Structures are given as structure tokens and as C-alpha cells.
């Protein structure tokens, strides 16, 4: 088995916010009927997470479930655990209409951190999403686009945001965030 490497190999940069790739993150796409209690139970038996609320995140001991759409969840776990989670979920969900895929190596994850409203400031330049704190609160998943590519954004706190995008556009998103956080380019909107 070849050694896994992340999209931009852990690159980081500093402007008026710090941009860093999160490295290897385990991610599993789970699709099914989120309103079905059998589905919820099967997912809980493997991840020990309840189902997240609409656009929310549910955290277990080591895993997190992100709400991606009315029938889709993204399981975030340790990179080396992802394949085992897929096996366990497939077994637990057998007999139900479902889809479970390990997408760990098909996604790139970035963290943007900074003080005050700097993070929202840097992100708002490259996405049409309304990033005002009362609209996009902490712990809410917002799927949108960043410049020309799809991405999911979540504020872990006012000082840090996590971005998940396709691996094939990882370099693009990293460069975009670096350019957007160039010192002196603050807009001062928030």
C-alpha cells in the first residue's frame, strides 16, 4: 500500500489570517433516509454519534457527523479508521437503501484561523454565502462555492473555520485563501 499524502501536503501560509491544510482526515459519505430510525440506529452503532440537525454537526467520542443534504451525511474520523468505518457501516446498513463511500483521499480540508472577524473577512471575499454571524453561526455547515469551486464551510469558533473541498481543486482553494488573506487587503465589512 502506498503512503497516503494530503492534497497540498500540509502547506500553510500566513496573511491577516493563517491558512493551513489539515492534513490527512478520514471522511466517509453516508447516504440514506435520515428520517428512518433504523438508519439512525445503524449509524449510531458504528459512529456513536446521533444524527445532526439540519446543517448541523453531531459529535461523538472520536467521530463527527456533518449534515450535507436531506439524505447525506459526512462522517469525519481519523484517516486510518475510515476504511474500517466503511466496512462497519456497510454491514450495519445492509438491507436498507444506502450508500457508504470512503472519500478521505478525494477531499482536501483547510483550516483558516485568525483573531476578531478576520476569518469571516477573508472567507467572505471568495464566497457568495452570507457569512454574518447571525446568519452563519458557529457549528453550522454551509455548502457553497469558493470562487469557482464547490466547498463546505464551517466555523468551529469565531477564530477558526474549516473548509472541505474536492482534492482536485485543493491547490486552487489554498491559493485562493492565501491571496484573499494578503496583509493590507482587509475590507473591514464585519
Amino acid at each position, binding site marked *: 500500500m502506498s503512503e497516503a499524502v494530503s492534497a497540498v501536503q500540509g502547506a500553510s501560509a500566513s496573511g491577516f489570517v493563517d491558512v493551513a491544510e489539515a492534513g490527512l482526515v478520514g471522511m466517509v459519505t453516508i447516504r440514506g433516509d435520515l428520517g428512518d430510525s433504523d438508519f439512525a440506529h445503524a449509524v449510531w452503532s458504528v459512529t456513536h454519534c446521533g444524527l445532526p440537525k439540519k446543517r448541523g454537526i453531531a459529535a461523538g467520542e472520536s467521530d463527527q457527523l456533518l449534515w450535507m*443534504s436531506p439524505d447525506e451525511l459526512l462522517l469525519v474520523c481519523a484517516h486510518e479508521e475510515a476504511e474500517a468505518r466503511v466496512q462497519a457501516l456497510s454491514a450495519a446498513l445492509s438491507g436498507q437503501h444506502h450508500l457508504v463511500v470512503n472519500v478521505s483521499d478525494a477531499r482536501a480540508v483547510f483550516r483558516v484561523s485568525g483573531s476578531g472577524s478576520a476569518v469571516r473577512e477573508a472567507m467572505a471575499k471568495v464566497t457568495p454565502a452570507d457569512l454574518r454571524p447571525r446568519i452563519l453561526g458557529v457549528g453550522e455547515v454551509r455548502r457553497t462555492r469558493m470562487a469557482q469551486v464547490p466547498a463546505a464551510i464551517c466555523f468551529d469558533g469565531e477564530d477558526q473555520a474549516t473548509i472541505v473541498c474536492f482534492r482536485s481543486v485543493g491547490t486552487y482553494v489554498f491559493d485562493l485563501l492565501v491571496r484573499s488573506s494578503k496583509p493590507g487587503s482587509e475590507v473591514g465589512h464585519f
Partner: protein
Amino acid sequence: MLILKCPYCGVACDETELHAGGEAHLTRHGPGSSDADFEEYLFMRENPRGVHFERWRHVYGCGKWFHAARDTATLEVFGTYSAQVAEPPKDVRAAITAKVPGWRWRDLS
């Protein structure tokens, strides 16, 4: 700029996060239908100045199709609703009537 609220994920999306899917509530006339019905289904579209019903897809988000009722002249959005209906729900029609009394669109009013 047009902002539509996706009825599935509840997000207020900018039109650049969406994909326009053309006119809503078309009845499909396929094999075995009359030429007139097939022509109507395939080619004839409303192009109103005012109240219009459209299909949109939340392509940069949850990926779901939905319906929107809006005014093509003012860009006012009267409401968005599920894709799994054959005609606009009562509350959307009432919202349109409140703003545009006497509106007509195909055989709806």
C-alpha cells in the same frame, strides 16, 4: 441579484449557487401523444413579464431540485417549494395574490 431559499436545506442561496432548470409544472407528453400535445410539451414555454414559476437546482449545496415563484420584472420572490408537487401550494398562491391581485399564469390564477 436573485436570492432563493432552498426549501430542503433552508439556506438563502445566491443565484450563482443555483442552476436554473426552466419552466415549472410542465406535463410530459411522450410516445403515443398527439402531435399538438407533444409540440406543446417540447417547445412551447411561457415568457411572462411578471409572475413566473421556475425550477431551480441547488447545485453548489444539497443538490436538490426545487420550485420557485417569482416576478421576472422586479425579481421579487413569492416563495420556494418542494419539487414533488404538480402545482404551486396554496400558501405560495396566496402570497402572489397578496402582491399581484388578478395574476394569471397558464391555467393558474
